């Protein structure tokens, strides 16, 4: 029994995902995936311009909530730029933190779903299966980053004709009553990975990127394979400025932030 448990556990998570750099080097032994997707967000480059937010909306068919529901907190922004004020004028400072799903290795949102609508994929993604979701909304409660979004209304109805023509056919328009969240643009990964597999090769660094990373002209966001020590993201996070959001919770996110300022 113990063997079984250890084996399956390692199959899913790799033997040692606690140590930072070592974790990323450790493959998902059982699953054997050569990829472990991760992201770095360089806060020192970020200007809070919001291009990533719109890019995410455009790529992932995020619904338009309208003024009233936006004010009531029902807008959907898989990617948002948080702004924090500190102090008072003139000794006031502010910070921008772009926040999306952190795709935690130990995602607190996953185990609480009673129907496996969200689970961890072998590539380290926090997967969300819309048609399995029954909308308990528990995952959002257990999500320390508040990056999960509930479909309060039928999104398709707010894509007034002909606005619906803009929808990306690679991404589902989620129906009412299900949770959704940043997927790391999994449809792009799958498409490219399938092509690469057909050519019997692995995906190269830079071959795919997420919509947010692509849109960012300041190159704040880098997306790539953490298992590849030479990938841009691996290089970027080999920095003393690195930190992860609410790291003390032990959720082991794969989104690494690089601290801003003169450090």
């Amino acid at each position, binding site marked *: 029994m113990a063997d079984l448990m250890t084996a399956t556990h390692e199959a899913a998570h790799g033997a040692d995902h606690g140590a930072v750099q070592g974790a990323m080097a450790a493959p998902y032994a059982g699953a054997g995936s050569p990829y472990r997707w991760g992201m770095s967000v360089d806060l020192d*480059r970020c*200007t809070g311009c*919001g*291009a990533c937010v719109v890019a995410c909306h455009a790529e992932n068919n995020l619904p338009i909530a*309208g*003024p009233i529901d936006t004010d009531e907190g029902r807008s959907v922004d898989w990617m948002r730029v948080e702004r924090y004020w500190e102090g008072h004028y003139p000794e006031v400072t502010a910070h*921008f933190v772009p926040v999306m799903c952190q795709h935690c290795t130990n995602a607190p949102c996953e185990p609480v779903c009673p129907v496996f609508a969200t689970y961890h994929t072998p590539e380290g993604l926090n997967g969300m299966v819309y048609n399995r979701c029954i909308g308990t909304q528990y995952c959002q409660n257990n999500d320390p980053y508040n990056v999960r979004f509930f479909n309060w209304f039928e999104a398709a109805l707010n894509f007034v004709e002909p606005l619906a023509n803009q929808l990306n056919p690679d991404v589902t328009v989620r129906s009412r009553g299900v949770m959704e969240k940043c997927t790391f643009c999994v449809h792009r990964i799958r498409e490219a990975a399938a092509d690469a597999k057909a050519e019997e090769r692995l995906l190269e660094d830079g071959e795919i990127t997420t919509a947010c990373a692509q849109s960012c002209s300041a190159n704040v966001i880098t997306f790539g394979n953490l298992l590849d020590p030479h990938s841009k993201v691996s290089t970027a996070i080999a920095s003393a400025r690195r930190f992860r959001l609410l790291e003390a919770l032990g959720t082991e996110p794969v989104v690494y932030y690089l601290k801003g300022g*003169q450090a």
Partner: protein
Amino acid sequence: MERREFLKLSGLAGTAMVLGGCEDYSSQLIAYVERPIALEPGTGNHFATTCDLCSAGCGVSVRIIEGRSVKVEGLDGHPLSHGGLCALGQAGVQHQYHPDRFRGPDLRVKAGEVSPDYLKLKMLFDDVFKAKKRPTTVPENFKVGLTSFAAPDFALADAKAAEARKFGADLWAQAADRLGRVLAASGAGTVVVLGPQVRGHRYQLFAQVAKAFGAPAPVIVEPFGYEAVRAANQAVYGRPDMPYVDLANTELAICFGEEPFTTGPAPTLFNWGFGEMRRGRELVRGLFVAVSTRMGEAATVADLWIPVRPGTHGVIAQLALHAMGKGGVSVAEAHEKTGAPVERLEKFVRWVAATELKVAFGGGEVLGHTNAVETLSLVNGINVAAGMVGRKGGIVPAAPSPIAGMAPPAPISYKELVKLVDRMKAGQVKALVVAGVDLFMALPGDAGLEDALKAVPEVVSMATVPDDTAAHATLVLPDSTFLERWGDATPSVGSGSSVATLMQPLVVPFFETRSAEDVLLTAAKAAGKDLGFASAEAYFKARWAGIASDNQVPGTQSAWKKALRNGGVHKPAQGAPLAARMPAADLPAPRFEGGEQDFPFVLQPVKSMKYREGQAAHLPWLQEMADPMSAAAWGGWLEVNPHTMAKLGLAQYDEVVVKSLYGEVKVGVVPYPGLPEDVVGMPINFSRRNGTRYDGVEGGSTWEATMKKDPGRGEDARALLGAKAAQAAGGLAWGSVRVSLTPTGAKSKRLVLVSKSIQPQESPAVPARVEQEFKVWPIS
């Protein structure tokens, strides 16, 4: 296969998803084995084109799937976008598929009154939508989620589409005739007004047509424009155009009032430069200093923010000159004049003195003050004093377009615009042709534009989406979007390269719209003034003929095709050297309208990246996204310092009447710690009286899914501004109005906040949380 042919076919293949396809093809089928090479059902293709939503002219790459444009992305390697793209550019698809877009030409009998023909056309297109999205089980007025959709009736949709297209084409024939007659009849009394994003040969064609009809050359109107920057550049660099600010290679960038990353002349370019400056080099991390009254995005990301009283930015420029030993003012004096903390000023002085490569630039809120030209001249003076004009990491002269004569003239100043309005009022303008700009967005509320437009017998609007100007038009000839038409552009700002971007029709015009070029050519022909071009395509191909020698590679594609593929041509280049004259050292004090007693607050109008100069207001994504600083969405808000709020007894969401000498608006309050206590901020150009469902002053549209009544965006902050406040350079001093705040005692129904926890003084844990989030953990 020719691109045009491909596009027709792609439109056809997409009939299942899109209205597109010319009527000739829309009900035909093409064998899959004979499909065009680039058309794979379900697979997207990227095509290069140019974004024309602002004057920057970024090259973009658009993803086309089955005849639909689904995403606008940055074009890799383009000197302006560097592969990225700003929020507005990406919302281009919503511009394209905007539900309130003009369906076709509207040949009005009376100004502002929609013609029955247009209503019929609109109905025909609505029938197409209905045929494709047929709700069942639930009546129309109970669209709350139970709605399920019956299978689309494509045959009916095709038939209706064909009918609509045919009817639209007939209307166009009449419209072109009418435009020709209008131009011929008005002759010299015709005024053509173009938007600032007209950055290519479109201007030349308009000019050619105007000339053919004996009208004066078209003018370009830039709402809340850069007159002062051009004047200061003229004074210091000897040329009015905007040079390349080489952030990427500098050590210290000093930004005066501008929000270069969100609303400046080229946000993507400055964003890229900023990223490179900060972390793009191995050893150097550039420092960024922001000088502003309101803490905006630039001040937020700055290494040092120098908060100054409204209109005193120039003093900090003088301080910088002082730090370099070129006169100016001392720290104590600067502190006295600007109110900035001494230690920050001292730090600034140290940085200026210690760095070799530095660059200063200005704009944004500085442009709104009466002393804008003097201030910006002093800012340019920093570059001169530091010897950074023409140097890498400094001010690099903008390179001219690779196609000579492509760049349009500079926009007219605000003062000239007011003169034009006066001429209209006086009945001297017989016909006004407006393309690519909403004149209401360029003028304060009391400019009397409405009366002026009423005095013009023929107002021709070429707007794509309904706006206030189009609402007063006698003839609406909707232009196709940048995804549907031919065009080209050369950037308005320097980028270190010589750039000409090419715009190509990637999708079939969604509705019965025509590109302005096609309309002009047809109208001119109808009026007996053939310009010699069969179509817009022929026109632009002819204009781009000159690039052949540069790009021709034997045995490969033609230069034209290569340019199409690459979205134009560009190569690293610098313009002719700039002059470097030291500006006059004196700085006049800013003037404000309204007495301090009656109007205790200075109004700082904010150009939000959500609305830009008004061209983003109708796009739901941008309306809905949180403003980076205030976290407000959907319309306007009033930023007030929390201490001021406490003094006035105001809370978040409280509605206040903001009153100036010129008008008043009602708006909800947002606590904003980044403003002095006697300054309030409010965005401009977020609403239109006769806008779309997304930017209308008064709500009206019901959100279909939720049946919630849209309260509308509310009266725009332009209503508070006075028309007379002009600067030396002729720009509108939009930041020089004082206002009073009167609480109405009610909560604002229009204020929409994405984040409501923005009161640090009331939530002591917020900084603690930030500390925690920003905590750096050691590498194990």
